[in-house]
């Protein structure tokens, strides 16, 4: 019962959030100095004022912003996100396509960063103050204060340009028709961007886990476990992992937003045709429908990530799960 109520509450929250996000981004986009007609026809092409007027009329650009928003919002509710000006395709189709290639990137890097972060965090926490801890901690601090795009560029220079191990960009090989691209080729193209992306969040997870582990290692129950003759490895298995996992999982799902944000930069550096690039293009070329569509989808994505984090927290933590107090 608790859970159903909780989910409904969060659904309402999500809807209000989405409405707020759409209104806000609509205001931002309409007040941007980019002229959608000009960016549509291209910079060098001359159009007569009459033609321009016609296009504007056709798109409804002459209506009041409020009317345009109402119009768009009505369609959104019906499930129609409009047509992308850049791709000349329905927005939902464009997003579906881009989302797929972004997802490969994001999921791989999300998993890599989660596991790597947790393992490094445990090593640092258990051996706090040791040489290993200091080295890993320094690396994590340096990485977490380094911008993703810079790491991406460094990787490109080292691994693609100098060593030639990985392609310099795109999600598929150049000059190969879409049908004949193999999964292997797709993965090969996604490796470097995925690693770059995971660099943006693993150090945070590692540093957070480290603090949590330190807390656990200094707790009374670990002290007692030591006094009972449990070996370090048993203590880690029996107590440390268990107690560190809940905050780590929560953090991992909350980090979806970071990965999402990072993917825009990583995709930009690697010319990887995903959501991030589509968002940048849509913004620069005044493709309002596509930009708003991406905004909505990404808000849902991040929000769902956070909700999963919250729900998992309640499911995993017995204090919340079995709230009742038992008495003799």
């Amino acid at each position, binding site marked *: 019962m608790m859970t159903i109520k909780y989910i409904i509450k969060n659904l309402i929250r999500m809807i209000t959030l989405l409405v707020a996000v759409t209104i806000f981004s609509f205001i931002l986009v309409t007040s941007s100095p980019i002229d959608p007609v000009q960016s549509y026809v291209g910079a060098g092409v001359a159009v007569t004022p009459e033609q321009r007027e016609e296009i504007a009329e056709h798109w409804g650009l002459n209506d009041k912003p409020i009317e345009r928003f109402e119009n768009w919002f009505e369609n959104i509710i019906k499930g129609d996100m409009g047509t992308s000006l850049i791709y000349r395709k329905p927005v939902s189709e464009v997003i579906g396509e881009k989302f797929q290639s972004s997802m490969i990137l994001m999921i791989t890097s999300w998993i890599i960063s989660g596991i790597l972060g947790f393992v490094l965090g445990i090593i640092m926490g258990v051996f706090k103050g040791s040489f290993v801890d200091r080295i890993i901690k320094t690396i994590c601090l340096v990485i977490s204060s380094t911008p993703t795009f810079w790491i991406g560029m460094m990787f490109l220079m080292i691994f693609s340009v100098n060593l030639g191990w990985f392609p310099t960009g795109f999600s598929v090989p150049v000059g190969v028709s879409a049908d004949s691209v193999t999964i292997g080729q797709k993965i090969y193209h996604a490796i470097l961007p995925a690693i770059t992306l995971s660099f943006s969040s693993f150090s945070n997870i590692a540093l957070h886990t480290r603090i949590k582990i330190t807390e656990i290692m200094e*707790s*009374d*129950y670990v002290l*007692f476990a030591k*006094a*009972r*003759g449990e070996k370090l490895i048993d203590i880690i298995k029996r107590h440390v992992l268990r107690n560190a996992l809940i905050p780590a999982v929560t953090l991992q799902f909350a980090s979806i937003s970071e990965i999402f944000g990072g993917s825009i930069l990583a995709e930009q550096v690697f010319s990887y045709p995903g959501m991030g690039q589509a968002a940048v293009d849509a913004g620069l070329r005044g493709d309002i429908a596509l930009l708003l569509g991406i905004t909505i989808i990404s808000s849902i994505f991040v929000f769902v990530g956070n909700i999963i984090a919250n729900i998992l927290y309640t499911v995993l933590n*017995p204090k919340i799960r*079995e709230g009742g107090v*038992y008495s003799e």
Partner: protein
Amino acid sequence: MNNIPEIEIRNLSVTFNMYDRGLRQKNIKVISNLCLKAEKGEVLAVVGSSGSGKSLLAHAIMGILPKNAVVTGSMKYKGLDITEKRIKDIRGKEICLIPQSVSYLDPLMKVGNQVMIKNNKSCFEKMRKAFRRYDLCENSEKLYPFQYSGGMARRALISTAEQTEPSVIIADEPTPGLDRKMAYRTLKYFRDFADRGKAVIMITHDIDIAVEYADKISVFYGGTTLETTRAENFIKGEKYLYHPYTKALYNALPQNGFKAVKGFQPSPYEVSEGCIYFDRCDKRQEKCRGNIPVSVFDNGSCFVRCIYGHSV
């Protein structure tokens, strides 16, 4: 009674090495010249006020002090030195610590599971037997620590000592937070341990309870033991107690006049030579500032650290 004591501690000192303001290092001696003997079949109550370093004594024996602690002096178990390596082998098996509160239980582990030291059948059976002995129902095996009352948690912690066959049990503050009835019930368990042939060291600040259940009482003050005496001497009267602090403690009990002595227990930051009770003692002399002799009585099982010895 000329057996080797189960635990014998001589001149134990524990010093913490810590950073003062800036990078200056500072040593704080929290336990000094402590002597203690725990014998088979006996309950030894270590009685002292808060902040006298009682818990650290337990942690020192178990080898679980923080890394910045330096331990000197001798600790012997069954006549052999307790080295860092040896304690790792015997703690939890031959020497068991029973900590004081629910915070010593893993909050995310079912109590029954964590009482079992290993996940096997014999441990399970021992756990079940211990739970029955300490009136914890089968249902409570599957509960988490936060679902336990203070008394239940304490009994679960006591049942951890039943996983092995320890010869020494160190109980750290087993009674605070329990009502009179529960406290007596808990102490009864320790009495039972001793009656089953184990040596029990019970760290407490409840003298009344200690007098009732312990064989000997060791009076702990400012990080050291001032006197070890038979428990019945606390009932017999003041003249059977030798150290001025022990006498003061006796007189401070509600049934003996409720008289308080002025002053405070010295903090470990105040380093002083000589008797630790000097400032508050009404019989102090100039020579109390020097080395204080230890005088032994009762066939060597009791002692007092005072220039007056046990003759007064």
